[in-house]
């Protein structure tokens, strides 16, 4: 295979479009789930909240304004073909520039501070983005991007379960995390679960799980069944839309897994609000 040259400006433009698009236009997976939930919601208050969320999506899309003022921290999962060379710049700089332009030109909120503990000075362009890159065979670049609001990010958790905990232990940790989050993460939520790997791999998988469309299932039927079971159980908890009570606490549960160590069973739960914004592109 020949080395393919990709201009850095093409990467920047692609990233910029992804972040502007995801902030104005929610995916059909979420919109369909909200509409279905609105029909089935048992609480009148909850029904009304869901109706307003659907209306909010219409306004955001037609006026090209962000769905939510928290336009998040930019996260990108990149599959970078090993036969790609970037012309006129570096890949990292090109991605960060795309994020910068999207947040400035797209009227998106800049929510990133330079130092987490001491300075906490706003970087004013929402950079840096968090970028996870894996090198894959081929001459293309695939980007899966999301913007993660922190109302729900703060309600997320990782636990190093051990093998004897079994599937019951996994379920309990997920349910406990959702229960602790309660009305805070803007329910109805999307629950991203990462199981396996190491401490940080589980957390990364859980983030990736929040970016998977909720009308898809884990390809392993055992995990797909677990996704359904957890969704049913969470919706019996009663938090409801906006935490004001009702039968719609979650819109979806997505599980991603990875092989792990004989001594371990890491589980990460990344909670995402109903504005689960994600888009992908291939260059």
């Amino acid at each position, binding site marked *: 295979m020949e080395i393919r040259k990709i201009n850095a400006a093409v990467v920047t433009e692609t990233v910029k479009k992804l972040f502007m698009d995801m902030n104005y236009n929610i995916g059909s997976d979420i919109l369909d789930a909200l509409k279905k939930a609105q029909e089935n919601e048992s609480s009148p*208050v909850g029904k009304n*909240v869901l109706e*307003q*969320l659907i*209306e*909010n999506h219409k*306004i*955001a899309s037609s*006026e*090209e*304004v*962000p*769905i*939510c*003022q*928290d*336009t998040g921290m930019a996260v990108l999962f990149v599959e970078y073909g090993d036969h790609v060379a970037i012309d006129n710049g570096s890949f990292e700089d090109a991605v960060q520039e795309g994020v910068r332009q999207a947040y400035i030109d797209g*009227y*998106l*909120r*800049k*929510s990133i501070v330079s130092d987490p503990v001491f300075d*906490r000075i*706003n970087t*004013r362009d929402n950079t840096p983005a968090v970028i996870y890159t894996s090198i894959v065979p081929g001459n293309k670049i695939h980007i899966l991007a999301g913007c993660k609001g922190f*109302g729900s990010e*703060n309600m997320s958790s990782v636990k190093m379960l051990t093998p004897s905990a079994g599937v019951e232990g996994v379920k309990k940790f997920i349910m406990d995390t959702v*229960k*602790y*989050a*309660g*009305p*805070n*993460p*803007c329910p109805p939520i999307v629950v991203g679960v990462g199981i396996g790997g190491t401490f940080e791999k589980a957390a990364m998988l859980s983030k990736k799980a929040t970016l998977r469309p909720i009308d898809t299932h884990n390809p392993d039927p055992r995990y797909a069944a677990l996704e359904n079971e957890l969704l049913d159980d969470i919706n019996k*908890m*009663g*938090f*409801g839309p*906006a*935490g*004001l*009570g009702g039968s719609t606490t979650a819109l979806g549960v997505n599980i991603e897994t990875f092989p792990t160590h004989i001594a371990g069973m890491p589980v990460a739960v990344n909670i995402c*609000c*109903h*504005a689960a914004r994600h888009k992908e592109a291939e260059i």
Partner: protein
Amino acid sequence: MKKITLPLTDDVIKDLHAGDSVLISGTVITGRDAAHKRLYELIQNGEPLPVSIEGEVIYYVGPAPAKPGHAVGPAGPTSSYRMDKYTPALLDRGLKGMIGKGARNDEVVQSMIKNGAVYFAAIGGAAALISRSIRKSELLAYEDLGTEAIYRFTVEDFPAIVAIDTYGNSVLVTG
């Protein structure tokens, strides 16, 4: 649906009950994490505040930038519990109402009862919809904080729900 005009009087606050849907009109001040930290530190040090909070309603929000022709960008509520540490001190200084989303801790609820204050919930994530009820935005303090600066919003029929009333009753479902 109750229509409320600000500033809040004690009589109005006493007549608000958890679960009431309200439409709020008048002016509110905004403030979230960083502004709360600064106000709290000034109170702790006995120094004057850059804005008066007496009799005010504070909206926990960090708006997105306004597009040309818009009064304000999308501006939905942020999670209130992060302000819990600072809230009793503000209520002691005369703050009468708060608008946010999600739960509050017991110290805040007790301080609300003691000081005769009310906590409203707006719908988290309905930011584009909510911003239609915000007519005007003026910078009041802490411009350096960007979206976290303190603004004065003029609101008209701003939709909210009485989440915790001045009697300590809550409509929020908590774990």
